[in-house]
């Protein structure tokens, strides 16, 4: 009966992730089915004759039952064939790869700033609970969380890009020549994303740190005559971090969705903006590809976050019985 808990949990999580992806594919496929018109009409446009439409339908086997078409579509995707974009008339796969990369770049940079910033601020707030800095920080992050990303983004553009000319208003990443350029261009979207994410982690870190500082084991550590630094960094911090890491994990997955709006605001050529535009143009293969890729990223982030929290918790790592 003794199965090592961690590998078993990871396998369960992995299985669930694959299941989730499968459900996503079902949803994506059926949502697109609901779009007015069919693929043939979309390809040939409004002026198409009945005959050409019928010919194309037979060629694309559009009259097959939906489950059959779904299976065929899924089979293609498993082999890397996402179909051809109706608008760009290029294979979807090559298209989304670049967009996905850029989305991950933006999200990754945002997280890179987010993690130290929010944990640092949380610890700062916990240093003096209900003190002036705590109250000011709580108010600031709460307001930051309450302003929609698109508003933050637009006003940052107005202020820092148009008026002060510190940063470019649009994140035209294709024109970046050096890594410095990339940072410069992505500064505003990264700040925007951090506005929304900071509050939650700051609050979790603050609360759990306050809780941990009150705990018996921290009290006993200082009663054993350990130095304050050791009490703080060896006894308090590692235990306070796990709720914060949970919050970061939630934020990381939120990021995959939140990035859609920010990409549109900054005209950033990422997967989110691609999805929004494909839906506007009813570019079915592209919608499917982009939605699936974004969901896969989201699920992967969730999976990584889950496993990270599992590994950080000695109670889960070494369960007896």
């Amino acid at each position, binding site marked *: 009966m003794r199965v090592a808990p961690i590998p078993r949990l990871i396998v369960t999580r992995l299985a*669930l*992730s694959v*299941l*989730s992806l499968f*459900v*996503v594919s079902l*949803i*994506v496929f059926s*949502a*697109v*089915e*609901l*779009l007015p018109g069919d693929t043939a009409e979309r390809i040939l446009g409004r002026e198409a004759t009945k005959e050409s439409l019928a010919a194309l339908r037979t060629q694309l086997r559009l009259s097959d039952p939906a489950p059959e078409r779904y299976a065929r579509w899924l089979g293609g995707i498993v082999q890397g064939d996402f179909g051809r974009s109706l608008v760009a008339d290029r294979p979807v796969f090559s298209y989304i790869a670049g967009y996905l990369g850029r989305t991950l770049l933006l999200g990754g940079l945002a997280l890179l700033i987010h993690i130290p910033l929010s944990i640092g601020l949380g610890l700062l707030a916990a240093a003096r609970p209900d003190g002036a800095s705590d109250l000011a920080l709580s108010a600031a992050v*709460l*307001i930051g*969380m*309450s*302003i*929609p*990303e*698109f*508003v933050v983004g*637009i*006003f940052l553009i*107005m202020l820092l890009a*148009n008026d002060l000319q510190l940063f470019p208003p649009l994140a035209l990443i294709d024109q970046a020549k050096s890594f410095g350029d990339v940072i410069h261009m992505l500064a505003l979207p990264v700040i925007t994303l951090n506005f929304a994410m900071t509050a939650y982690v700051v609050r979790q870190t603050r609360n759990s740190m306050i809780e941990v500082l009150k705990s018996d084991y921290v009290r006993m550590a200082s009663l054993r005559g350990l130095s304050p630094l050791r009490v703080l960094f060896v006894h308090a911090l590692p235990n306070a971090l796990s709720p914060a890491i949970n919050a970061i994990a939630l934020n990381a*997955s939120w990021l*995959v*969705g*939140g990035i*859609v*709006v920010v990409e*549109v605001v900054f005209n950033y050529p990422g997967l989110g903006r691609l*999805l*929004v535009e494909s*839906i*506007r143009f009813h570019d079915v293969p592209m*919608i499917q590809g982009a*939605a699936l890729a*974004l*969901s896969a990223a*989201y*699920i992967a982030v*969730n999976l990584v976050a889950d496993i990270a929290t599992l590994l950080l918790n000695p109670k889960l790592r070494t369960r007896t019985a």
Partner: protein
Amino acid sequence: MTDLSVLLESRPRPAGRRFALQRLPVSAKVAGLVLLAYAAVAMLAPAIAPYPPNEIFVGSPFEPPSAAFLLGTDSLGRDVLSRTIYGSRTILLMGGAAAGLSASIGGLLGMFIGYRGGVLDEVAMRMLEIIMSIPSIIFALLIVGSLGASAPLVAVTVGLLSVPNVARVVRAATQSVASEDFITAARARGETSLSIVLRELLPNVTGTLIVEFSIRTGYSILFIGGLGFLGFGAQPPTADWGLMVNEGRGTIDASIWPVAAPAAGMAMLVTAVNLFTDGVNRLFGPAEQGGVR
């Protein structure tokens, strides 16, 4: 021996009983007043808005604020103040409906599976986990994009997408209450399941439900605003804040007001909701439930 107990036992003083609302922190009370003001403005929109919201060229385009147009006019010469006032109706109605939908369905589902437990609970939780592992915004874009954007559809979609989150929290609260001995005592007396849920369980998860509703309201407003901004919410010419920001941002150099007014309305509304949530959470949240004594 009875005297002994009088001598020895310390009795907590009966705390002055006050209504829950009175015990809210000041910030939450202020936030509550702001929310009431929003509700009043939304309800009285036809009476207080100086112009019909969608009437074009009541002034010339991009007029700066003046006595006639307190917040100026937009690119089509519509009165920004009137549109902003009417916009509060749209967002409150949609946000409230979405939050109400998720809190009620999620609440019922969470209580049901939390109380019943067993295999049903495990299966339901796995399903909720799968739904939650799909990013909501993609879900929403796909559904709204394929069925055609309309205010009710957006509200329902956003509401339903939050059901798993609410259900999970309420389920956990229910489970912790359901494992307590007063529930066991009720079972031992032979109370019906319905009576246990309504009489014993519900009063102990009401706080959680209120907090969840409050959280979901803030979340839904932001979500719906975002969808509106992307063009997947209420459609033109509706006075919708997200849509107004999107329409005005191209011409922000000509006039900031068509963007600033709805943006400020939105930011203040969500701040108020979040402050209120914070207060309610302090009243009913886990800290309070752990420390009732």
